[in-house]
């Protein structure tokens, strides 16, 4: 068995021990100069750490230590420095200076006292101000966070026509606040952890007690606590460690930038994982069908949404199988195509130098390349690429007789279809799987496509996300929850939370709220 102490962590520990070498003492001492030396030793060559020493009335020296840029300097001035320097403070007896400063600060900020050097250092790094006073062997850690943050804007990736337009930001507290704004109940819990040996990233697990499945919650906790890594830069770092299977194109953890999506998921009994410094919040467990549901489904009219959902079912099959079917049928089973269509396809293929499979592969790769090129381009260049792409892929290739026109139609239809999947990460799965299925179609015809489809289906049935079957409620079938998969039934007709996902109370609304049935709310 592996040891529970990976070498990486040992190395980090050693590194810390060497960098904080002067930190001979573990505890603060009553001598300010000594403390300052210890801290300065710890923050050696950290040019962004500010040491500010000042003498307060009553001749006791004090030292402020904070990271420049993370602290709200104006508040600091108002609260601490002005009163102290303008001799408004009462004379302090020796040793009670700390208490007075603390009283001053408490009115404005959360204040903790620290005795250990390590706690002081951690506090400073977490955007707090450390106040050390001469003759006192403990420091005040005041939370005066004031770093720059992005405002709440509409998420770029998940746009709705109707629905809230706020999106998460890179600041954890802003994100949790957006959640709390929507669910004002003490049953909404947020557990804090920190992950990452060096980055010390704050992670929050949010859930609603009584709705969440306790076993799943426990599993999430243990999986996150198991993570040992130097730094967490994005929620995907967490996702990779907690997902059930890595070697699959299908995502088992949903991510979103929309607070309303997170709320809806929590109400269904799912669990959200916030990670500081990224606007993307993870939601577990994810099922296949959540990947085909957009936030707006629940804000638009049910009939329209049900229709759109069926469109998506068709489109994701198109995204996966259309090129393969085209290749398989035209090269192995021409008798399946209506005669007139066959003749026009044959006419278009006249003089095309490549076999259909190669043609399809070339065009699909070209399309993926175009997409990839377009994603990260500076805006000024982007339009140029799309023009070139349209001309190269579309017209020039056909006119030059290198690619047949039907193939262009097939590839572009496939491309459009793959972007119609609401969850980007599920769409990626399809775009990847298209290629093996295409190879199967080119080698075995429809037989190969069938084998490919069966293999994918078997894989999907096998997948689980935190113990929840990936295809629930279709396989295993939960008839009452199918209303939200095959269609989008009106809210009043879906009184139950999804089984196998939600725990505890499955009832989410009172029965008999169909507005059609007279409930005394109609004008007489």
């Amino acid at each position: 068995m592996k040891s529970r102490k990976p070498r990486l962590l040992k190395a980090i520990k050693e590194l810390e021990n060497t960098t904080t070498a002067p930190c001979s003492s573990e505890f603060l001492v009553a001598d300010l100069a000594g403390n300052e030396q210890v801290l300065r030793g710890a923050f050696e060559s950290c040019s962004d750490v500010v040491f500010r020493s000042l003498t307060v009335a009553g001749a006791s020296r004090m030292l402020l230590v904070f990271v420049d840029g993370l602290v709200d300097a104006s508040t600091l001035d108002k609260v601490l420095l002005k009163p102290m320097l303008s001799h408004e403070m009462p004379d302090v007896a020796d040793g009670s200076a700390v208490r007075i400063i603390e009283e001053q600060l408490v009115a404005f900020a959360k204040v903790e006292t620290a005795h250990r050097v390590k706690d002081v250092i951690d506090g400073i790094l977490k955007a707090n101000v450390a106040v050390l006073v001469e003759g006192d062997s403990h420091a005040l850690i005041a939370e005066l966070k004031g770093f720059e943050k992005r405002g709440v804007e509409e998420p770029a990736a998940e746009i709705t026509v109707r629905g809230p337009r706020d999106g998460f930001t890179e600041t954890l507290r802003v994100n949790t606040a957006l959640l709390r704004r929507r669910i004002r109940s003490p049953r909404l819990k947020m557990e804090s952890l920190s992950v990452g040996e060096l980055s010390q990233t704050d992670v929050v697990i949010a859930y609603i007690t009584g709705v969440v499945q306790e076993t799943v919650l426990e599993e999430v906790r243990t999986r996150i606590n198991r993570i040992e890594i130097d730094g967490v830069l994005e929620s995907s770092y967490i996702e990779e460690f907690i997902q059930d299977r890595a070697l699959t194109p299908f995502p088992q953890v949903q991510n979103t930038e929309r607070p309303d999506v997170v709320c809806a998921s929590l109400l269904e009994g799912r669990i959200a994982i916030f990670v500081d410094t990224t606007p993307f919040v993870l939601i577990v467990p994810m099922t296949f069908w959540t990947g085909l549901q957009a936030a707006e489904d629940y804000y638009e009219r049910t009939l329209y949404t049900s229709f759109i959902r069926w469109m998506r079912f068709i489109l994701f099959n198109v995204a996966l199988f259309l090129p393969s079917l085209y290749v398989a049928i035209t090269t192995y089973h021409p008798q399946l195509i209506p005669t007139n269509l066959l003749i026009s396809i044959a006419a278009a293929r006249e003089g095309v130098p490549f076999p259909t499979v190669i043609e399809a592969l070339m065009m699909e790769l070209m399309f993926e390349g175009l997409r990839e090129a377009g994603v990260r381009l500076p805006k000024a260049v982007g339009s140029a690429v799309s023009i070139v792409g349209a001309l190269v892929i579309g017209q020039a290739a056909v006119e030059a007789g290198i690619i047949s026109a039907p193939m262009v139609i097939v590839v572009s239809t496939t491309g459009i279809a793959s972007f119609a999947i609401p969850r980007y990460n599920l769409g990626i799965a399809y775009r990847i799987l298209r290629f093996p299925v295409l190879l199967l179609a080119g080698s075995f015809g429809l037989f190969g496509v069938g084998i490919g489809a069966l293999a994918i289906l078997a894989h999907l049935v096998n997948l689980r996300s935190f113990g929840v079957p990936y295809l629930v409620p279709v396989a295993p079938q939960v008839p009452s929850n199918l209303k939200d998969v095959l269609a989008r039934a009106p809210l009043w007709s879906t009184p139950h939370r999804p089984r196998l996902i939600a725990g505890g109370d499955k009832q989410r609304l009172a029965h008999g709220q169909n507005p059609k049935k007279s409930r005394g709310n109609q004008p007489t």
Partner: protein
Amino acid sequence: MKRRRSIGLIVLISLLFATGCWDRAELDDLALILGWGVDQSEDKTYVASAQIAIPSKLSTQSGGGSGQGFFVLTASGKSSLDATKNIQRKSSRKIYAGHRRVVCIGETLAKNGLSDVLDEFTRNPDVRLRTDIFVVKGNSAQELLQNPYPLENIPALAALREHRAVGGIGDSTLRDYLMDEAKGHSTTLPVIQLSSLASSQGDESQDGGQNAGGPLGLEFGGRAIIDPHSKLVGFLDYDEAQNAVWVKGTLRHFMLTTRVPKEDGNINLDVSRTRSKVIPTLQHGKVYIEVRLSGFGIIRENTTPMDLSQVENVDRAQEACDTTVEQAAKHVIVKLQKDYGLDIFGFGEAIHRKYPQQWKAMKNDWDKQFSNAVVTVNANLTIRRVGLTGPPLQLPRSEIQE
């Protein structure tokens, strides 16, 4: 364990490339046969002709579409497939019969018997059973296939569409034929013939008006009677054929022109939903067959002075139509009883269904019994609509019958 898995994976992946591309064929490596013709020459060899589409000529894109969209390859051989093999010698692309929609059988071959050429149609997995088989009247199939048709890029398809247009169930005759022949019944096949597109004497003249000048086209020319030995024994002209098919029950619609008794002029009825019910009765060793024909009609033309907005007049027209249909159907049935002694109507099958025990004894000499069967025909047409006008508007008021 891990090694075994990786070896398995490698084997699986190499399967992809080890197929030798199996039976893959790109579309531009196939010669698409759309029409097929089989003849028999004097020395009993089979002559097969294939009408093959030229995709580049049929292309809707610019640069294509000049000249004929098809060409015909002909070769002879000891059997149908042997001839096909020899056609392949003349074709740069693989002969592909999966889209063969029309098969034309030359008259000579049909008279000598079809059975030898049909086997390949059913044995080849590429070929559809939903092909139309036509007997070519008056010409060889090769001549017919070589003749262009102005409306269709592929002339063979014109035959198919004509067959549909006159109320036949297109895409079906090979299947129907095999179903009948396998049971040892006689049957009919549709007839296609070359005729002058611009001449009015098409049907009556022996050569289909081919000498009248003008471009030749394809014409649907009734049906050919095939005996249980798959030999062509005679033809039914168009009207007889339509009636015969109606009796058999495989007609979709029917155009009827009839005189109304005591009136001057014709009524033209467009009959759809044509149905036929055959009710056999066996009594004292004699076979009685009642045929009930029904359908719903719309009056398309009325050259009589009757005012069709009056119900009595419509009833008279309906009776006239019924009588005409009964006579025509009776005429065809009698013709087959007396001249050929062949049951092409499926009466035998009806008896088989109703009297399975007696049928066993009858079936061997059924065609003889059929000749002696007493057949009555009852037509019951319903006139649903009479068009936009009641009385003929072109007549002065005084002449119109109320």
